[in-house]
């Protein structure tokens, strides 16, 4: 059996560029080379597409000018179906363009199968305001929120400030689009509001304001699959750097031998009950369906462990490191996860091609 020509796409014009490079290279490193011929496709910080063997080495990215990389071959994706030497693509982008549906649209045009989700799902999941509206329409529990545009803020700020006051302080001000925490601000007093809003408007013209949820811990679950065949991972609790004493702080004092072992940035499984875990996994799968996603996604939640109340934060359609660590903890090796993503990509395209998209007759003939 011939090998599958697998393109791995990463980089892009986004603040999460470097994180995407790590996700892409991790995936390449773990792919089964007996099954795949891998082509790395790198989008630099200026939006130019490149390929080349140098991209397989993380050291290249440590020294290269990521706005104008050298030593690479320019890559042009042909929008005509069947004109690219690619059987399957796996998108490892995080943030704007790559995660928001733009590249997905390009691959759809070129007829290249990819893990998904498709254009609409990627776009709506990337937009925090539309995500909130969909959750509301579906009756899913979430933080109270309000939203507005730059134009509304400039013309009539008073009703916006009133709505924010109704949420109760503190609140989080977030740009509608953006996959990372860049641009997100927490404010505790009304006096801070106008200046903060002006600052956040530098990142987006549409702004989301969310009420704070208390007595909660953050817990994330990954969901993998396509159509009816989906599964949810064990949950993780991300640990912020300032919330724990590092391994080195506690166990490498007094000049003793250093281990190079670092503190974990997450707890797997999260410290919650099995009943709450099941509830979270069921809800994660439901959201996977509601947002019409596919491939591997991660959904972030806040949970109140005492009351077993769950609040949805947001879905991430291309999660950092493809959430492989959650799947390993669930019993799926990274190489197997990649195999699943390739199979999902192929199945998605096959299912799509079964659909009627044009008619034999040409109605223009009768004009």
């Amino acid at each position: 059996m011939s090998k599958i020509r697998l393109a791995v796409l990463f980089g892009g014009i986004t603040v999460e560029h470097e994180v995407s490079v790590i996700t892409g290279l991790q995936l390449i490193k773990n792919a089964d080379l007996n099954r795949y011929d891998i082509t790395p496709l790198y989008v630099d910080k200026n939006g130019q597409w490149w390929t080349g063997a140098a991209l397989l080495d993380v050291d290249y990215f440590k020294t290269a000018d990521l706005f104008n990389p050298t030593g690479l071959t320019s890559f042009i994706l042909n929008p005509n179906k069947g004109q690219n030497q690619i059987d399957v693509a796996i998108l490892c982008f995080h943030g704007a363009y790559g995660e928001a549906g733009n590249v997905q649209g390009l691959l759809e045009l070129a007829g290249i199968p990819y893990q998904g989700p498709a254009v609409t799902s990627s776009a709506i999941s990337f937009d925090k305001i539309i995500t909130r509206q969909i959750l509301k329409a579906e009756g899913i529990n979430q933080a109270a929120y309000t939203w507005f545009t730059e134009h509304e803020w400039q013309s009539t700020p008073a009703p916006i400030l009133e709505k924010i006051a109704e949420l109760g302080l503190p609140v989080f001000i977030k740009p509608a689009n953006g996959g990372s925490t860049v641009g997100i601000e927490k404010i505790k007093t009304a006096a801070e509001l106008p200046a903060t809003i002006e600052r956040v408007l530098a990142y987006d013209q549409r702004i989301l304001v969310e009420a704070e949820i208390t007595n909660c811990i953050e817990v994330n679950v990954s969901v993998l699959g396509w159509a009816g065949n989906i599964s949810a991972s064990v949950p993780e609790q991300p640990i912020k750097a300032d919330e724990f004493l590092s391994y080195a702080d506690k166990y490498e004092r007094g000049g003793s031998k250093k281990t190079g072992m670092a503190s974990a940035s997450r707890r797997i499984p999260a410290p919650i009950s099995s009943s709450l875990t099941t509830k979270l996994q069921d809800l994660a799968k439901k959201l996977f369906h509601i947002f019409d996603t596919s491939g591997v996604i991660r959904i972030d939640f806040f949970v109140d462990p005492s009351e077993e109340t769950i609040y949805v934060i947001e879905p991430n359609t291309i999660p950092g490191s493809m959430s492989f660590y959650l799947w390993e903890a669930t019993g799926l090796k990274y190489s197997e996860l990649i195999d699943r993503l390739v199979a999902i990509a192929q199945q998605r395209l096959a299912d799509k091609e079964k659909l009627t998209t044009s008619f034999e007759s040409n109605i223009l003939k009768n004009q």
Partner: protein
Amino acid sequence: MNKTTSLTILQQSEYDLTRWQAWLKAHQNEELTLEPADWTLKLKLIHFLSHCFFFLPVTTAIKVAFYLTQPAEFLIRQRAYARAQKKLKTYRQNGLQVVAIAGSYAKTSTKQILEHTLSGSQKILVTPKSINTMLGVAQVIEQELKPDHTLFVVEFGEYHPGDIYRLANFVQPDYGILTPIGHQHLEILGGFEQVVNELRSFVTFFASHLTRVLVHEGNRPYFSKLELTYYGEKKESQWQITDPSVSRAGTEFSLVQPQVSESKKLFSPLFGEHQAVNTLPSFWLAEKMSLPAAEVQKRVVTLPYIHRRHEPTFAQNDVLILDNSYNTNADSVQASLKLLNQLKPTRRLIVTLGFTETGVDEQKIHYAFGRTLVNQSEFVGMIKAPWTQSIIDGFLSAGGKRDQIVIGKTQEEAFAQLQGFIIPGTVILFEGGYQEIYV
């Protein structure tokens, strides 16, 4: 040896000058820097007075300062006791209730669990850290007890015969919790029988109202003639946990209560069924005080980890460190070893000193411990102690190999030598050995 280190050891030897001097002699050529766990008033006073004797060698200056504090300490004690008792009496008239916790081990865990689980409905003060002497308790009453406190939880320590009964008379607890009696403090009290007698006096204090005391089921043999309320894992216990299930998320278990037909399923982030058992006094006390059990149940779910009592550190590559270094004994270590295996490690590393204050059975107990370790760990880091060879002999006699053991002067040194053996998924248990006095 610098002065702070000497003072640290003086405190750790519980101001027993013989033990203190023996330690200093054994470590005279070493450059150790130790800090006291707590700069108590007594330690500060000795520190201050020792400065006045700057012309004397450090050890002599500390010794002189120690003797000088004795009359002052006596007066301070009497004054502190009187003031504390007066204050406590006034607050009790305004509704303050007092809960005492005694036992050989699990006192601090039980105390901290009580503090967290009942703080939703009570304004609680617990004696901080391991303060458990009469002077320490008196100082807490004087400095920290406020008029709006509704519950005062006091840990009782047993260092001398009669300590427990004296403490009980001093604070006059409304309720008592007796955690497991075990092989701890044998040297100070003179033997296991003395430990049992000492802790028996705790229950004796409640003789006229035995329903106000809750006793760990392991202590049942010592109270065969009394009708007591027990807690634990056995079905004979009125307050019981069943179906414990331990994972890296925490511990799931069911709660069985007297006069409640259905058991409740619970989750606690703390590791181990022994910690699940330690939540039972909270439910018992809630019932005694007519507080809602549902409130306790909700707070069990968010229990914070307890310092150096199987306190976890999560490292990369699924490596988990469980720090149970505060203290251990031949009885409590069983729970640690069980927990270690329940967490399904790819490899088990144990860093241990063995057990302190084991009295005449020191050699026998450690030989047996060494034999146990063979099937419980792939590698052992021994912190050097007078009984280290007994552990090694036991380990080798049970089929262990010498290259599975490393020895260091301190916990850090022993651990440093084990680090090459860590693989992804390893669980590392620090079992005892926190206090340098025994090293």
